[in-house]
């Protein structure tokens, strides 16, 4: 799907990044973001989910309370990261190398009932 939108040729990866469970509040209340990331980082390595988290923090997140999204260099406790609808642990966590059209979903876990 949407094959035409892929653009590896320009060394850019397009991703669908989503926030839910209330986490969208930290991202201008937008639940679904279409992002284009470089395919390689400064060290010419494939960009990873860790790179994405850093990018979101620096380039996308307007809210100043960064500690509600990242702590100790990774997503804070209580945030679930799903890579194409699988817990990121099954995909290598932060070191997972992003693929074109990947869907990355950040879910803040809820405690109400």
């Amino acid at each position, binding site marked *: 799907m949407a094959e035409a939108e892929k653009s590896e040729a320009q060394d850019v990866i397009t991703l669908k990044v989503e926030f*839910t*469970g*209330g986490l969208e509040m930290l991202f201008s209340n937008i*639940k679904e973001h279409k992002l284009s990331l470089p395919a390689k980082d400064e060290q010419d390595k494939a960009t990873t989910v860790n790179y994405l988290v850093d990018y979101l923090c620096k380039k996308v997140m307007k809210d100043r309370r960064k*500690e*509600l999204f990242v*702590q100790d260099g990774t997503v*804070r*406790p*209580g*945030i*679930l990261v*799903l890579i194409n*609808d*699988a*817990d990121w*642990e*099954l995909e290598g966590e932060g070191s997972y190398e992003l693929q074109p059209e990947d869907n990355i*979903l950040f*879910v*803040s*876990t*809820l*405690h*109400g*009932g």
Partner: protein
Amino acid sequence: SKVSQWPLLSEEYERYGRQLIMPEVGLKGQLHLKGSSILIIGIGGLGCPAVAYLAGAGVGTIGLCDGDYVERSNLHRQILHNTYKIGISKVDSAIDYLKALNPNVTYCTDTPASRYLISDTCVLLGKPLVSASALQTNGQLNVFNFPARPVGDLTGGPCYRCMFPKPPPPESVLTCGEGGILGPVVGVMGVLQALEAIKLIASGNIHCRLTDQGYSDGERVSDDSQAPQGLIFSAYSSTPFRSFKMRRRRGNCAACSSHAIITRESLRSGSMDYAQFCGAISPISAL
């Protein structure tokens, strides 16, 4: 008097007829339900619909556990309670309702606990945990510790600590009182908890017994399609329900791994301070 030849009372054949005729339940599944016991922790927005459908389906013994009293602000979502029950304990209010719905079930009561303590106890006792939560327009559902293999066995289902080894910072946690909640949002999650519990029990695959050859847990096939799944719900999203593949057990989990530091003894002695572990969140509001 003679012992009946029939495994169910005639009242029960009539009452459960609509589920008895389904291959997913059948007489065998109904007997599993009748022989099972379930503990419901919290008779709030999730527990109310969950326990109604579990009692309706004929789960034999139901434990109810909640320290709160019915308030008017509960009634838009806690549909077993009502205006006349305001000020009464939620457990007593629920038992009134449930005994009228299905008098064949045995109801017991207990006191509430935090999510981590509940999960740790399930791991130590070898019980699956059907966990859900809801806030505002969102809901989540996970079955933890299923299959409920012994501590140290990495083929068991992940526990709550595998998924959340550290509690979230208290300032990031909203309660229903602060954030609000739509009644049917939490209602859907509670009904789905009942459904997952009924599926587990009626299939007969929940039983995880220690045998000479190690643990057996029924005929559960461990192919990928059976991998534990989680569900997230977002009422105003264009894809309101998303299922996802849950992680495996964590090799260094404090509760379910071979490096576990949580034991029956540490729970009994009270050396684990769950309130402190979770910071400022009180056990009840964190439910």
